[in-house]
């Protein structure tokens, strides 16, 4: 691995040292980013868990009310009653930046704000259970919207954490050790060269002295 591609010169050594410094700093920054993302992620996960349970419970209740309603009324009547909804929802989406991850923030406006105005039918031919069902549906809807936001945030954060983790690991276990090894290799090679130069000079000096004074 080491010494395969590097030329042992002082210039390359300086370059490698610079790169090692950058890699170390990048590693530290990414590690901090990962830790902070993880902290945010755990909050989101907890929130998601609570919301998911609430939505599932709410929906199950709403569905069972609807089931009762549909048992009392004929399917045609039920369909007719709900054929043309009176309520409509408009969704707004903004983005929030969490550690350079853009996560959506939803806001919604309903056309009818009066809670008693949501029933798209007259009360004469429908059962009270249907009103109940719609009521529950309308209530659980807000939680559902919240759930969508939290769940999307969670997915996006998970992706970013995965990416950051890979980068941290790549720097920590591949890039930095490799650079260190190369630097060590070059340092040793340079020292060796220096030693051989010194030895050569000593040898030359000896020869020159012998020539001049005829030492034995």
């Amino acid at each position, binding site marked *: 691995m080491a010494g395969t591609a590097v030329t042992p010169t002082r210039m390359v050594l300086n370059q490698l040292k610079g790169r090692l410094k950058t890699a170390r700093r990048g590693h530290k920054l990414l590690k901090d980013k990962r830790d902070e993302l*993880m902290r945010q*992620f755990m909050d989101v*996960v907890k929130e*998601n*868990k609570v919301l*998911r349970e609430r*939505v*599932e419970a709410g*929906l*199950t209740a*709403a*569905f069972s009310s*609807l*089931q009762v309603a*549909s048992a009392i009324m004929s399917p045609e009547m*039920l*369909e007719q009653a*709900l054929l043309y*909804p009176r*309520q*409509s*929802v*408009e*969704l*707004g*989406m903004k*983005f929030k930046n969490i550690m350079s991850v*853009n*996560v*959506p923030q*939803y806001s919604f406006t*309903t*056309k009818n704000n009066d809670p008693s105005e*949501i*029933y*798209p039918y007259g009360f004469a031919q429908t059962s009270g259970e249907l009103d109940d*069902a*719609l009521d529950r*549906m*309308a209530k659980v*809807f807000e939680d*559902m*919207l919240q*759930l*969508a*936001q939290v*769940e*999307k945030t*969670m*997915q*996006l*954060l*998970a*992706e970013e*954490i*995965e990416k950051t*983790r890979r980068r941290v690991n790549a720097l920590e276990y591949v890039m930095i050790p490799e650079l260190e090894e190369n630097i060590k290799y070059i340092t040793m090679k340079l020292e060796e060269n220096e030693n051989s130069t010194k030895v050569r000079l000593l040898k030359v000096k000896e020869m020159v002295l012998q020539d001049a004074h005829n030492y034995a």
Partner: protein
Amino acid sequence: MLKIAVIGGKDTVIGFKAVGLEACPASTVEEARQALRDLTKEGSDYAIIYIEEKLAQSLQHEIDRFKDSPAPAIILIPGREGSMGLGRQALRDAVERAVGTNILGD
């Protein structure tokens, strides 16, 4: 303005329609797949798509395509028969992806 859609069985979506969401009734997986593709087409303005778990479990591949993009959010909801736990599975998957292992312990 952005819209919200629900894909599910006819009985499931009818309630959502009444509270003002766009309903896409689908009785088979194929119909659901088609509905999902229509809703996520380029330039469509659906920001959230709720899909019934029963249908979603066969469309996992299609749903995963949108996991990393900021919109649309595709969220699983339980159907009439109650929760199958797929929604919680999505949560576990996300944790496992981020942490590398399941630390929730369930």
